[in-house]
């Protein structure tokens, strides 16, 4: 265990070195972060733009903004910690160099998923903080301590879910030949998480709750912060996420077994 922690530390250090080399990226990432925040928030201003507009049923402007803030936070996790690793694996598969990773005497899943981080993306913590601030200012009161704690637990659950989804996508990458655009597909589906899940109806709602559990990632933490999450939902979210992760790990192990290198 400590060995893996040390490895993680080393990988983070390498990423920090890389991040320092591309100094221009810092400013670009900050700008992008602000821009994406704007694109995440502007639609809300349009939806709630005028007094006469009804908005999203069951969500006031401030409450919807809390969901957006959760979304920005998780998008930072996705772009900073999850997508770069996915890209690294895809590069490995394309060049046929994944063999080198598999030859190393450490868990392959651990190695590939910690191989690359985009550290400048921590900036989205700042922007999501700003949006949280505006949201609770709108609502008129802050979240309760219990609400914050529950939300933190749910963020951990959300990260676990994102990570498991990521593992599933990589497993798919072993089978499909051209996978360059899977990261793009992943982020574009994740985009749906910027809205409260009550927007979706019927089959789509089912899909975003159970198949790709976007509702668990942003809507539930927001509801926890707003103090209206049912305890049962919290328990089943945690349970569901662990099942999801276990299934993902099984599938990963199976596809590693089937993997044939692209080289030769």
């Amino acid at each position: 265990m400590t060995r893996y922690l040390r490895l993680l530390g080393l990988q983070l250090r390498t990423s920090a070195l890389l991040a320092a080399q591309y100094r221009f990226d810092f400013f670009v990432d900050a700008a992008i972060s602000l821009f994406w925040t704007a694109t995440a928030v502007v639609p809300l201003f349009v939806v709630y733009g005028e007094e006469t507009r009804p908005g999203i049923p069951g969500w006031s402007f401030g409450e919807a903004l809390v969901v957006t803030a959760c979304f920005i936070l998780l998008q930072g996790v996705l772009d900073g910690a999850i997508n770069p690793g996915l890209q690294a694996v895809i590069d490995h598969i394309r060049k046929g160099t994944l063999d080198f990773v598999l030859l190393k005497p450490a868990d392959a899943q651990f190695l590939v998923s910690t191989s690359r981080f985009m550290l400048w993306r921590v900036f989205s913590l700042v922007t999501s903080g700003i949006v949280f601030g505006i949201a609770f200012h709108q609502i008129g009161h802050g979240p309760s301590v219990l609400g914050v704690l529950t939300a933190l637990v749910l963020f951990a659950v959300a990260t676990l879910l994102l990570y498991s989804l990521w593992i599933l996508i990589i497993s798919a990458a072993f089978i499909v030949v051209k996978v360059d655009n899977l990261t793009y597909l992943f982020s574009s589906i994740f985009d749906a998480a910027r809205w409260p899940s009550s927007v979706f109806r019927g089959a789509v709602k089912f899909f975003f709750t159970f198949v790709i559990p976007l509702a668990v990632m942003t809507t539930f933490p927001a509801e926890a912060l707003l103090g209206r999450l049912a305890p049962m939902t919290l328990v089943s979210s945690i349970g569901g996420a662990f099942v999801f992760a276990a299934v993902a790990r099984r599938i990963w192990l199976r596809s590693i077994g089937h993997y044939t290198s692209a080289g030769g």
Partner: protein
Amino acid sequence: MKTFAALRAIPTLLKIGFSEAVAYRAEMLVWVFATTMPLIMMMLWTTVAEASPVVGQGGKQWGSGAFVAYFLSVFIVRQLISAWAAWEINFEVRQGMLSMRLLRPMHPVLSFAMSNLAYMPMRAVVTLPVFAILLVTELSRMTAQWQVWLLWPLALIGGWLITFFANVAIGSLSFFIDSSIKIMDVWLAAFFVFSGYLFPLELFPEWLRIAAQWLPFRYQIGLPVELMTGQLTVEAALPLLARQYTWAGLMVVASLLLWRSGIKRFQAFGG
């Protein structure tokens, strides 16, 4: 003479590009499926409009059906105006593969354009079912003026020109900086907000709407979609088309200038 030879090569370029598109059909489908945003926005807005229609700046009442027509049109237009040369140029510059392209007696931008355009037939095929759904369910909300339908392809071509040459311009930045793709992300963020991709521009507050008029983005998506969905008459559309082609012209000039100075730098520093 030189341009004539280049023109003669175009059919072959398109033909080979099309074979490549066929070889990468699965990949292209993933891209198409990744264009989920208009559909998500459609769900959002129909939910919002359920209780009572949303009133736009012009006083138009946007009910669920209007949103369905609008966003399905957005989906179709997005497929038909797309270009990805920025990523290709960035990749080739970083991998040093651009050298192979530079050795050929043909302007690389032309070959990028042809390979991007060669995907269009396949993309058009993908949009057909969406078109069918649109016509079956929301026919009454599409424009009935045939003159407008004549302008529509023009607006699509204009939209594609802006998209493609913006791609070339941003791709050319790869010659100068490592992270031109991030600039592309910024461009895309602005594109999403101001193009009419996330919501009809009519729903924008006044000042944002004016800003959108002066930015290139709405001429990529908004204009063709507004033509399809009957929001524009021929008279109203013509000045907008003029602006669109002005933007297209500016993009061509800007991107070719950037490309040229980029190539100079590439030749000075090597790839």
